[in-house]
């Protein structure tokens, strides 16, 4: 690395808490994600991983706390999350694509929705036609990037689950959002397809590394929620454990206040072309099992940085 830049912030969760009635879910979650990081979020079921992700997407805002999205542009003030917006991309496990659009149209629709509106498309039809051509060209480039150049004109029902998730990733990428959120994106796929898609994400990480080497801002920042520890360690460069099992008694609380961050450790980054050897994950996997997933865990949570 020739140029040691100060890492830029991409996302900042400030003291985020959430509860449903008397059921406490998230307690004082503080999280700073730097631009270019691939963060894996793991935790026992019911710990509120999805709640946190939905808070970041903005579809279900937290009861307490703020979430700020920092812009790539210099001098821009961070924008608080008040609802879903084009600065945060999302890839869901199911319903990831619009069924009435082909792969190419699914990728291009973000450009259409973001750059044009109904009056423009109706009254400036020729200008729209011209712009549409550019959109489709760009969408085709992104599909090529996720190795779907041959499947551009297929509808989602004609594609396999793995292909659909690839298109969904391209659909999010084409918008160049500040951060991309993946909610158990490969949960419904078979093992081989899963591995291919994990490699596809590592290729994006490799682009980040190249950009950093050239002294540029890394283009992709990503949070992946998963229940698969191997996937979490393999894809991410930072592993965060969210858990309701932590030493809340140590903070003078009388009842469990919900999940907080109990584990935050860098994880090894793999070369997408190297053979995967889950043996080397073993140590970290065991550590996560003990510190995040153990219902009798009594570890203090990660202290908030100043």
């Amino acid at each position, binding site marked *: 690395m020739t140029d040691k830049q100060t890492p830029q912030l991409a996302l900042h969760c400030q003291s985020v808490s959430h509860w449903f009635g008397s059921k406490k879910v998230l307690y004082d979650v503080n999280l700073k994600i730097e631009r270019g990081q691939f963060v894996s979020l793991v935790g026992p079921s019911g710990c509120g991983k999805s709640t946190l992700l939905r808070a970041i*997407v903005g*579809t279900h805002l937290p009861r307490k706390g703020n979430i700020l999205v920092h812009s790539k542009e210099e001098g821009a003030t961070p924008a608080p999350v008040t*609802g*879903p*917006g*084009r600065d*945060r*991309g*999302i890839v*869901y496990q*199911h*319903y*990831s694509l*619009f*069924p*009435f*659009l082909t792969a190419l149209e699914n990728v291009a*629709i*973000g450009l*259409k*929705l*973001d*750059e044009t*509106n*109904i009056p423009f498309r109706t009254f400036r039809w020729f200008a729209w036609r011209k712009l549409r051509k550019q959109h489709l060209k760009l969408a085709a480039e992104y599909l090529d990037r996720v190795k779907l150049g041959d499947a551009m004109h297929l*509808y*989602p*029902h*004609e594609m396999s689950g793995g292909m659909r998730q690839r298109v969904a990733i391209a*659909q*999010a990428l084409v*918008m160049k*959002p500040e951060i991309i959120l993946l909610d158990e994106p490969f949960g419904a796929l078979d093992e081989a397809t899963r591995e291919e898609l994990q490699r596809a994400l590592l290729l994006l990480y490799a682009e980040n590394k190249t950009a950093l080497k050239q002294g540029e801002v890394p283009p992709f920042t990503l949070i992946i929620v998963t229940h698969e520890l191997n996937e979490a360690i393999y894809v991410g460069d930072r592993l965060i454990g969210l858990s309701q099992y932590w030493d809340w008694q140590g903070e003078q609380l009388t009842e469990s206040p919900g999940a907080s961050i109990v584990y935050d450790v860098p994880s090894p980054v793999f070369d997408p072309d190297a053979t995967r050897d889950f043996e080397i994950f073993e140590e970290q996997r065991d550590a996560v099992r003990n510190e995040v997933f153990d219902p009798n865990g009594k570890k203090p949570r990660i202290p908030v940085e100043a």
Partner: protein
Amino acid sequence: MIRRPISSLTRISLGILSVVCLLTWYSWLSHRQHIANPNDTTIPNWTQLTEGVKKTVTWNERTEERWLTDDAKATVIRLFSGLGIAVAGACLLGIGMGCLTPMEAFFHPPLSFLAKIPATAVLAVFMALVGLGMEMYITMIVFGILPSMAISVYQAVKEFPEELQYKAYTLGASHMEVIWTIIFPQVLPKLIDATRLMIGPAMVYLIAAEMLFGDVGFGYRIRIQSKLLSMNVVYPYLALLAGFGFIMDYMLKVFQRKISPWFEARH
């Protein structure tokens, strides 16, 4: 084994056979009836039927009318005006109710109530309210099919997964864009299906209204000619109605396949 596949040749031959059987059966029935009563008109033979068809298509100098074209024109205009208003209204109401919760709370209870009233039973009320003109036929069709159609459109919007709506917002869509660019194309094929299902009921309501209050139209002619026992006019009219319904259904199906090619294969 049940549902054993058959060759297409067998399938077509059996289809033709069933039509031939039906025609033979009718001819035999008519023949028997004419042996009993040579002047019978309730089961007209083929010669009588041809005369009946001729009567409907020839210009009557004295009354200055040609039954078939006059009736078809009146009925078709009434039917399409009613259907058009009902489909457009159902689409607006259904999408509105599916997207806006206050609209849902306001319109859903009365619509689900109105959908249960048989439109034919309300005919007298329409006559009192809007008179005997074109308005009555349109009101009849709209009242008969709009509520249940609006509810099926509303349900189609409700079935639309929330994730896709959220995704559209993360792709920079405005509220109007979500409705027009994301929800409408998904609802359109279901709207066409609902229209196909509603052509039958719309014809029932229209024919009923024409039978009671019309002075021209398919329902009117069928009623008058039935009273005169001129079944050689009534039967061709019934065949025409069936053919019309069949063609409408087929055309909507083709339209749906053309405009939403993704839809059928998915199911």
